[in-house]
């Protein structure tokens, strides 16, 4: 049985105390996020667009695995379905790129929902195995000959990059960034409301005590399949955005490692943490490049060693901070809070108020 030491999501995101330092932090964050594309070069803006896209994909996976306890090692499949849906709609059916997003989301919802049915019977490790097989099979399925006229087969599909709408003095990279940001904002808002709702509590109940939840009247089957569908939809929308950003899809874009990166991302960011996925996204986008630079130390022949360094870093993080960045943040917050309370109590004999 999965056993997560983290607090339930309600505890994490429920307290919206608008204290002065908190508000200042939020404003600062907003300034940074909105100002980024104007301060950075086109290439770097593109990288951060990728971070946002990954964050959306990770959020989807986290809803399923972190909040609902269903391990998926194959979410790259939904990333691929969303990506190809968007490409085919744009290239073959002439749909505008932004309209492909909700359609891709719906298609992936369906796919995820369908996969959710057999997934009901599988738990923990078995589901991990089944989804692992799914991740391995995806590139092959994408190359399936009968699908060729639609998918472009192994050659893939080339797409034109979206231009900013008229009158907006933005570069293409900046426009893409803001497009991703808006979509992400919406999806994050939905996710936060979801986990704070009754359904959110039901999800967590199913994760932690499935039998008790069932006994209490929670419709486990419907919730689990629906969440599978929703999680797939999120990752599918991310896939569609990724296609729009890169301008190209091919079966090789969706290998096993995409799926594995997603799992790494949510664990590094922190399971069952909405904001942790941002850290996870930053990790999977930038750390491989960083590992690349580190490996240069070993010389020319070590060109593939970055992955060893990357793997090692992940292992160390698993050992030192198994609850991911969110867990670290929580410990820090608790530490600061404890410190604050202690110093407050020193000059005050009244019992400490519960923080």
């Amino acid at each position, binding site marked *: 049985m999965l056993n997560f030491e983290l607090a339930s999501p309600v505890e994490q995101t429920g307290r919206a105390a608008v204290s002065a330092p908190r508000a200042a932090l939020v404003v600062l964050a907003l300034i940074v996020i909105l100002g980024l594309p104007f301060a950075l070069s086109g290439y770097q803006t593109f990288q951060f667009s990728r971070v946002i896209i990954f964050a959306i994909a990770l959020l989807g996976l986290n809803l399923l695995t972190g909040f609902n306890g269903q*391990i998926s090692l194959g979410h790259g499949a939904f990333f691929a379905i969303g990506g190809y849906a968007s490409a085919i709609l744009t290239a073959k059916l002439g749909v505008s790129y932004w309209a492909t997003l909700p359609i891709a989301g719906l298609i992936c919802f369906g796919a995820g929902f369908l996969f959710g049915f057999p997934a009901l019977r599988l738990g923990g490790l078995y589901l*991990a195995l089944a989804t692992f*097989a799914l991740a391995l099979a995806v590139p092959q399925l994408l190359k399936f000959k009968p699908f060729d006229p639609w998918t472009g087969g192994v050659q893939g599909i080339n797409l034109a990059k979206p231009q900013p709408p008229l009158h907006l003095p933005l570069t293409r990279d900046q426009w893409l960034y803001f497009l991703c940001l808006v979509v992400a904002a919406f999806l994050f808002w939905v996710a936060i409301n979801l986990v704070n709702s009754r359904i959110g509590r039901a999800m967590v109940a199913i994760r932690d005590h499935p039998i008790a939840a069932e006994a209490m009247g929670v419709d486990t089957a419907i919730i689990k399949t629906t969440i599978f569908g929703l999680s797939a939809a999120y990752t599918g929308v991310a896939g569609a955005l990724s296609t729009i950003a890169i301008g190209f899809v091919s079966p090789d874009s969706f290998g096993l490692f995409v799926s594995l990166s997603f799992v790494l991302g949510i664990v590094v960011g922190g399971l069952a943490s909405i904001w942790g996925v941002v850290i996870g996204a930053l990790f999977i986008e930038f750390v491989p490049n960083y590992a690349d630079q580190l490996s240069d130390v070993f010389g020319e022949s070590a060109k593939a060693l970055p992955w060893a360094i990357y*793997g090692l870093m992940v292992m160390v993080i*698993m050992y030192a901070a*198994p609850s991911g960045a969110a867990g670290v943040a929580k410990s820090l917050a608790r530490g600061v809070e404890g410190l604050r309370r202690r110093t407050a109590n020193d000059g005050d004999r009244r019992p400490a108020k519960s923080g």
Partner: protein
Amino acid sequence: MIALIHQILSGLAMGSIYACVALAIVMIYQATHLVNFAQGEMAMFSTYVAWAMIDAGMPYWAAFLLTLAFSFAMGMAIERFIIRQFDGAPVLTVVIVFISLLVIINSVAGWCFSYTIKSFDSPFPATSRFGQGFISPHEMGSIGVTLAALALVYVFFRFTPLGLAMRAAAQNPTSARLVGIRVGQMLAIGWGLAAAIGAVAGMMAAPIVYLDPNMMGGILLYGFAAALLGGIDNPWGAALGGFIVGVLENIAGAYLVGEEIKLTVALAIIVGVLVAKPSGLFGRAIVTRV
């Protein structure tokens, strides 16, 4: 008809390799309830070590045995120094550790031995009178070696005190400790054995699939399918599952769905088995008390 026989024989040969991998996976699963995703890479690395020894001039069977010893030590070391650190950690954490291990071993192998494919000679003669036109000597030898390894493992677990102790430790660690069995050591030995069996798979596979750091990926997937099909807690079922998967793969590819989506066949087997009969063909159904 002839083609069918060819497909079946060829399937049995590859199936013997899947059987070894499946056996290794099941051994670790039985002892720890964990699936070793890095099993393929460990086998691949062992095979490279064997190759290095043979390249340096050592005779084949000497290198073979030394490689088994090396793999055993490697398996024990990984269990003791890496896996044990995560004892009691959530399932997902351990899965990630395995995957990290997979990535690390793959990279290190590429760094040490480069990515150019190497040929790994078979110990068996290139041609022989038997089975001429139907099955190659290596394929026959591969099946033979696998069966021998399976038999040895069976004898070990069934008739030796150490084997008995290991089975006890896997089945009921607490009781085993009470009777004085060093459960931790049993775990390490289990890992060592599994690694050695994996090395056998690698060395039998390499002459067929040629040696390169990515050679075990597809084989690992079929190994999983085999282990699940046979019953993930039944070593012999898993081995039998390996042969079945090997034959099924070829027949499905040749006659049913086409060669293009053979990996999907593995996926279908895995999902199908898990949904219809999670305990596999020969496993025991696990009943959980509420």
